[in-house]
């Protein structure tokens, strides 16, 4: 029996009825990983021992009638989220052997819920990238087409869910890093409202953009996982004090009267015709469910990509400065003085893309350039936030593609950072605005002899997760 093919709701029912134990589920999932992962490469670390221990704890909870929606459910954690005693590498040589001394808030929440962590998933180094090809440690393949990338940066998490090497996975999204790999791999990925999931224990890439979220097989699963991980956390100053976490509340309600806008800027040049077609089909399906679909315009989105790269690189250059070889992580050999220690450690410890973004960030923050770049980019961000606000006065949600194209071949774009960056054009505006957005599978595109998954994106105003899940679930049930 391959339990990991099933979704959370189904497995939870079996667990509650004691038809299967959490330990059996964990063993089954570990078997699936052992069978498939040599080919997929989703996991950087398989934490067999802790997984079985957590499964036993989950069984005890279930036995005592203390189990919840996630108790005993096996999942995969992106490797930039700290797990006490389980190495957390950020897919970087810099942290290849780093053992965190503390759990991230999300790790604590999932432990408390009785979920069972199978291991840590591959990603672009420090979450910088869109294909997981920037991992310094291993290649991850798209389960739908193994010579294709899984997307990124949460490529390992998306691939693990798609390949049934876990039931759900946790990712992080700075500019699309949950949604784009979800789209490429054909799973559901949610980037929640900024401030609703604690960043405590998420190794920072760009603090004002980073947000943790779930990757799942179904929309309902996704809402359940988000309900488990979302909370106020006093250890994160950007964690919001009060908000409603009943994300599943509207699932199953019909869409009559829901207004959904299709911003035309997201369907312009550069969007693959299959992607445009599949997303428009999704719009038709939503319309049949009662939603009112209307084309609209968001011109400010044109500023999004340059503003995003300036700001996130600026934050990254500072966030990643602590990796200096002094206290933990990689330290270069043959050091003669302090300057060399920094220089060699950081040159050898970071990959090309990470160094590129650190350089870019330091440049835009340096004396004399701050106003021209960082400040301007902040103004563009403010402008975009205002433009979104105006649109959301008219529409409940916006429907767009997630990525301009389906997954591409491994190595196809990795030589051209500019082309890679353009792939983020549909996802970064959401992070600039701190908004919630989901990626939902909506068909496949036949490319290079493979059927490549494509997803659509639903964007809502802050705290509209329940409504996003409502529309996404309505679409899903119409398939």
């Amino acid at each position, binding site marked *: 029996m391959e339990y990991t093919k099933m979704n959370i709701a189904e497995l939870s029912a079996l667990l509650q009825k004691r038809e299967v134990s959490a330990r059996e589920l964990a063993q089954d999932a570990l078997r699936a990983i052992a069978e498939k992962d040599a080919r997929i490469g989703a996991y950087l670390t398989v934490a067999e021992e802790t997984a079985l221990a957590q499964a036993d704890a989950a069984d005890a909870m279930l036995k005592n009638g203390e189990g919840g929606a996630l108790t005993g459910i096996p999942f995969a954690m992106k490797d930039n989220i700290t797990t006490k005693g389980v190495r957390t590498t950020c897919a970087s040589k810099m942290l290849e052997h780093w053992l965190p001394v503390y759990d991230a808030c999300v790790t604590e929440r999932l432990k408390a819920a009785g979920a069972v962590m199978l291991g840590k998933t591959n990603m672009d180094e420090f979450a910088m990238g869109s294909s997981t090809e920037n991992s310094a440690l291993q290649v991850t393949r798209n389960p739908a087409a193994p010579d294709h990338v899984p997307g990124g940066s949460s490529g390992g998490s998306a691939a693990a869910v798609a390949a049934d090497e876990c039931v759900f996975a946790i990712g992080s999204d700075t500019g699309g890093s949950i949604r784009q790999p979800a789209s490429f791999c054909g799973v559901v990925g949610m980037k929640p409202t900024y401030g609703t999931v604690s960043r405590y224990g998420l190794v920072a890439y760009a603090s004002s953009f980073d947000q943790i979220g779930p990757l799942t097989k179904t929309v309902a699963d996704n809402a359940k996982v988000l309900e488990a991980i979302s909370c106020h956390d*006093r250890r994160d*100053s*950007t964690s919001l004090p009060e908000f409603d976490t009943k994300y599943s509340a509207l699932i199953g309600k019909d869409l009559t009267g829901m207004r959904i806008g299709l911003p035309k800027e997201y369907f312009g040049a550069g969007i693959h015709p299959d992607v445009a077609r599949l997303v428009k089909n999704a719009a038709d399906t939503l319309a049949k469910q009662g939603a009112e679909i209307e084309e609209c315009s968001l011109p400010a989105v044109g500023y999004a990509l340059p503003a995003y790269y300036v700001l996130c690189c600026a934050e990254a*250059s500072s966030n990643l*400065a602590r990796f*200096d070889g002094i*206290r933990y992580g990689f330290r270069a050999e043959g050091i003669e003085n302090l300057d060399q220690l920094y220089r060699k450690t950081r040159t050898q410890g970071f990959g090309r893309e990470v160094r590129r973004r650190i350089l870019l960030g*330091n440049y835009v923050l340096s004396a004399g350039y*701050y106003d021209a770049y*960082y400040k301007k980019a902040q103004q563009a961000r403010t402008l975009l936030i205002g433009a979104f606000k105006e649109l959301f006065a008219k529409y409940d949600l916006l429907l767009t593609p997630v990525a301009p194209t389906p997954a591409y071949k491994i190595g196809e774009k990795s030589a051209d950072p500019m082309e890679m960056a353009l792939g983020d054009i549909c996802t970064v505006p959401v992070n600039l605005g701190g908004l919630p957005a989901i990626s939902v599978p909506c068909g496949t595109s036949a490319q290079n002899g493979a059927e490549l998954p494509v997803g659509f994106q639903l964007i809502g105003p802050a705290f509209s997760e329940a409504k996003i899940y409502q529309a996404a679930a309505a679409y899903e049930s119409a398939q």
Partner: protein
Amino acid sequence: MAKYESVIGLEVHIELRTKTKIFCDCPADHGGDPNTRCCPVCMGMPGTLPVLNKEVVNFAVRAGMMLGCEIAHFSKMDRKNYFYPDLPKAYQISQLDHPLCEHGYVDIEVNGEKSRIGITRIHIEEDAGKLVHTESGSGADCNRCGVPLIEIVSEPDIRTAAQAKAYLERLRELVRWCGVSDCQMELGSMRCDVNLSVRPVGDPNLYTRAEIKNLNSLKSVVGAINAEKARQIDETQAGHTLLQETRRYDPEKDKTYTMRVKENANDYRYFPDPDLVPIILTDEDHARLRAMLPDLPEERLAKYTGEFGLPAATAQTLCDNPALANLFSAAAESVKQKKLLANLMLADARAAEIPAEVWAVLANLVDSGKISRSAPEKLLAAYRETGREIPALVQELGLEQVQDTGLLESVADEVIAANPKAVADYKAGKEAAIKALMGQIMKRMKGSANPQEATQILKEKLAKL
């Protein structure tokens, strides 16, 4: 030859005495073995986040108010990026363009000449750790990482070393006074950087300055200023161009030495810290913090000797200890006999441990004659032990004085009748003889007589004999 004057501005770093560090729950006080007063947050471990300790803001604002500053309604934290092994995150969280306090001043007097030294700004920031060099190599001790600091930047209003010293002394007095730091230069809880340039007297322009870092005593500040002024005048007169540079002062050689010139200076790449939210202070916040401020030291001294009628020495003793003076001021609000209160408090070596309300109750009980002048000592001992309320302790220890005049009169009559010799001595002019009679009254009443009242009655009865 032209006469030169120096133009001096001071940057003073002061450690705030909050219980915990600025961004985590670790203790902020000195001591401890290396790396025993730190946690993943102040050690900057990957994934950790800072959370601003509100008490740091309150303390800094109190210092700012004490120094006549305008207090911000909007303030924020910025990152100052540079690499050094004692800085775990490779950036210091500080404040760049929206400091908590601005435009303050300190009034000083040197040789009878008064001047006002402007304060440009006061901002909050975290301290770095410290490097420990041993034979086996160098190590970083993170105990100091995240200890809250205020940086007080003065205007270039200071002209002489004596003024600088007066400024620092007054600054230290005021900051200590409002209870936010002990400002001990020798322990490093107050440190000073000097910015100095020279110019011909009468020239209003500012010239290239040097910054002398990390001076940790008033003596070294004075020495550094004199040495650097002399050096700059020598260089200028020799026709050399001065460089904008950072220097250090060697007190043994009484000279300053180059550390780095500006071309090699760090570009700190400041930007707003995205992990922290802006600090918003409302008018209500301002009012609440202002209400917590003590009077200025000299205002308080004047109040104690004037309105309160305390002897100068008593007032001064209280004012020398700001915490005790704060306590006294609080207790004095509900006590009529301020001098009695002051004497009670000064008689107790650990007076600061006792709440103001307790002092007020004690003083009022003595004042009304309900307890004797010597009872508070016993009551305080019992209070320290049990923490129970004073009136209950008075009952329990039987310290209530009898004010039953009828009883006192009859006891006085008995004593007079029983001690004809003492009575005769008193009548013969030996005033001291009354003490023997008082002693008898006290003995018969087991110490519960109010001595003033008893003396009064005794004297009246003796006069009638």
